[in-house]
C-alpha cells in the first residue's frame, strides 16, 4: 500500500472555537492509483490534501496517523516534515498561477529551490529540460519571468516543478478550477501521463468537478462535512453509488444530450452543517431523504464490497 491514512483529525483554530474540518478519516491509496477526492465546498477535502504536506498556522493536528510506503509521516511536526516535502510528498497547489516568485526567472528559482534542498542543479537540469519538453513547453521558458507566461503555461511549469523529484504521493489541489475546458483537459491528461511515466507513484486529485475525475481517476473518495461518505472505483461511483449523498451528487450533474424541459435538475436541498459544532451521528442526516432512527449514531466507514466502502446505516445494515 502506498498511502495509509488512519483516523486523521485536523481542526482549525478560530476565535469562536475549533472548526472540526477533518474529523477522523481512514482510507488508503495504492501504488499507481489516481484517487479523486470530491465533495461540496467546506467538506474538508482541501484540509485533507493540505494536512498531508503542510499544516498552516491555523491548522491543528489532533490525532491519527499517516503512513507512506510503510513509514510514518510526521505531519504534526513542521520541521520533521521537511525531508518528506518535495521528495516523498508533493503538491500542485490551487494557486499555481501565482505560485512562482514574480521577480525571479523561473529557471533561477528552480535552481535555488533544488540547491536549498541539497541537490546540485546540474544533476537535474537535464531531467528538468526533458520534462519541460514533455508538457509541451519551450525550453527557454526557464529563462522567462512568470509574468511572461499564460495561465495554462504557468500551471504546467508548476506541475513539472512539483514532480521534479519523483515523489511517492502527489496532491493536486483544485488545479483545474481556474482554467477553461480545453486547458483543463490538457492538464488532466498531463497528470495521467506523469503517473504513467512513473514520475509519481500515487496521486490524490482534489476537486469539486466530478467530470474531471471521471476522466482520469481510478477511484473516487466522497467526503461530507469532515467525514468520509463513500470510496469506490470511478465507474462504481458514477454508475452505482450507494451512499445517498453520492447518489444525489451524481444525479445533480447535468447529462450531455438530455434536455431538461420535462425533468428538473435535482439538487440537494439544505446546506452542510456548521463544523464548529457538528451534529451528533451521521452528519448528512438533516438533508438525507433516507434518514431513520439509527442515524443518530455515527455510521462507520466499512467495506461493503471489494474496494468499496460506505458510511451509511442504510447501506451497510443497521448492525454494521
Amino acid at each position, binding site marked *: 500500500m502506498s498511502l495509509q491514512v488512519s483516523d486523521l483529525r485536523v481542526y482549525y*483554530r478560530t*476565535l469562536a472555537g475549533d472548526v472540526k474540518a477533518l474529523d477522523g478519516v481512514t482510507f488508503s491509496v495504492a501504488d499507481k492509483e489516481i484517487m479523486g477526492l470530491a465533495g461540496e465546498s467546506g467538506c474538508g477535502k482541501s484540509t485533507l490534501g493540505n494536512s498531508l504536506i503542510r499544516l498552516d*498556522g*491555523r491548522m491543528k493536528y489532533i490525532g491519527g496517523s499517516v503512513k507512506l510506503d510503510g513509514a510514518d509521516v510526521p505531519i504534526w511536526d513542521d520541521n520533521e516534515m521537511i525531508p518528506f516535502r518535495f521528495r516523498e510528498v508533493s503538491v500542485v497547489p490551487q494557486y499555481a498561477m501565482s505560485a512562482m516568485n514574480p521577480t525571479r526567472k523561473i529557471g533561477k528559482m528552480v535552481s535555488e529551490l533544488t540547491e536549498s534542498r541539497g541537490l546540485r542543479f546540474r544533476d537535474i537540469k537535464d531531467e528538468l529540460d526533458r520534462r519541460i519538453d514533455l508538457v509541451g513547453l519551450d525550453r527557454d521558458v526557464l529563462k522567462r519571468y512568470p509574468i511572461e507566461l499564460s495561465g495554462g503555461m504557468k500551471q504546467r511549469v508548476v506541475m513539472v516543478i512539483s514532480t521534479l523529484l519523483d515523489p511517492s504521493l502527489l496532491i493536486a489541489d483544485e488545479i483545474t478550477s481556474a482554467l477553461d475546458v480545453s486547458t483543463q483537459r490538457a492538464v488532466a491528461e498531463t497528470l495521467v501521463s506523469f503517473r504513467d511515466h512513473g514520475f509519481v507513484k500515487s496521486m490524490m486529485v482534489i476537486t469539486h468537478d466530478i467530470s474531471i475525475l471521471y476522466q482520469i481517476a481510478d477511484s473516487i473518495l466522497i467526503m461530507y462535512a469532515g467525514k468520509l461518505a463513500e470510496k469506490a472505483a470511478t465507474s462504481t461511483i458514477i454508475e452505482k453509488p*450507494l451512499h*445517498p449523498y453520492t447518489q444525489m451528487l451524481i444525479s445533480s450533474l447535468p447529462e450531455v444530450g438530455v434536455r431538461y424541459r420535462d425533468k428538473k435538475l435535482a439538487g440537494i*436541498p*439544505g*446546506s452542510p*452543517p*456548521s463544523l464548529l*459544532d457538528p*451534529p*451528533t451521528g451521521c452528519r448528512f*442526516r*438533516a*438533508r*438525507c*431523504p*433516507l*434518514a*431513520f432512527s439509527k442515524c443518530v449514531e455515527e455510521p462507520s466507514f466499512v467495506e*461493503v464490497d471489494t474496494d468499496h466502502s460506505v458510511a451509511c446505516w*442504510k*447501506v451497510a*445494515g443497521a448492525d454494521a
Partner: protein
Amino acid sequence: MTAMTGTAAEKSPSVDDAGNVPAPAAKRARGEFLFFTLRSKKFLISISILLFLALVAIVGPMVDSTDPLAQEMLPMRHPTLDPGNWFGTTYFGEDVFAQFANGLRASFFVGFLGGGLAAIIGMLVGFLAGYRGGWVDEILNMITNVFLVIPTLAVLLVITSYLQARGVMFEAIFIGGTSWPWAARAIRAQTFSLRSRDFIDLAKLSGRPGWKVIIFEIAPNMSSYLFLTYILLFGGAILIAASLDFIGLGPTGGMSLGLMMYSAVTWAALQLGIWWWFVPPGVGIIATVGALYVMNVGLDEIFNPKLREM
C-alpha cells in the same frame, strides 16, 4: 443491498439539527465586525486616546476660559499639574494649557476639514481614473504625478508670502488641495480591481449610468478602505499643519500647536530651558497622530480577517 425505502425526513432547509436558524449573511457580518471591534486592543486604546484628546479640545477651552494670549504680569510659572496651572506659563505669562487646548481644537479642525477635502478630491480623481480608464486615466495620472512631485511646502511659501491675512480655513483648504495624490493613486488601484468584477458588469448592463455605478456599487464595496484612507489623511493633515505653523506660514491670529512651538523657538525657549512651552504641543500631536495610525492598523485587522491575530 437493502432497498432505499424509508421516510424522507421532511426537514425545512433552514433549520438544522440543533434547531438553529442560520442568520442571514449580512447581519452576521455586521455582528462579526462589532465583535472584533470590541476585542481589538489597538482599536480600543487608540479610540480612547482620541476621544480623550477630543474632549480636551472641545470642552477644555469652554471650561477653562483663559485667553491663550492673555499675558499675566507675574513671573513665569513652571507646570505643576494643578487645575489652573496644568502646563505652566510661557515667557510672557500666557497660560500654556489654554494655548494647548485651543491649539488642539485647531488641529482637530484642520485634520477633519483638510483630511476631508483631500479625501473627496482623492475619491473624485481615483474613482474617475480607475473606472473610466483610457485617456481620462492618462490625463488624471499626469495631473496626479505633477501634484505628487511638487513639494507643497514650496508652493505655500510663495502663496503665503503674498497673502497677508490667512485663516484656519485657508490652511485646511490648502492642505486638502495638496495632499490628495497618494489617496487618488490608492483609490484608483482599488477601483481598477473592482471594476472587472461581475457585479459591475451587471450594473452596467442594466443601464446604470457611470456615476451611479461608482456611488452605489463600487464605493460601498471599498467603504472600509475609504475610511482607513481618510484616517491617514486626517493624521497627515495635522502633521503638515504643524510644520506650516511652525515655519510661520500658518493662520494669522488664533492659536495652534505648531504656533506654540514657533513662538517657543522665536523667544529662545530652548536657550532659556522653558521646556514646558514646546513639549506639550508636540506630545499632543504625537498622541493624536499616533493614535490615528494605530487605529488605522486596528481597523485594518478588523476589516481584513486574514490579519487578525489568534
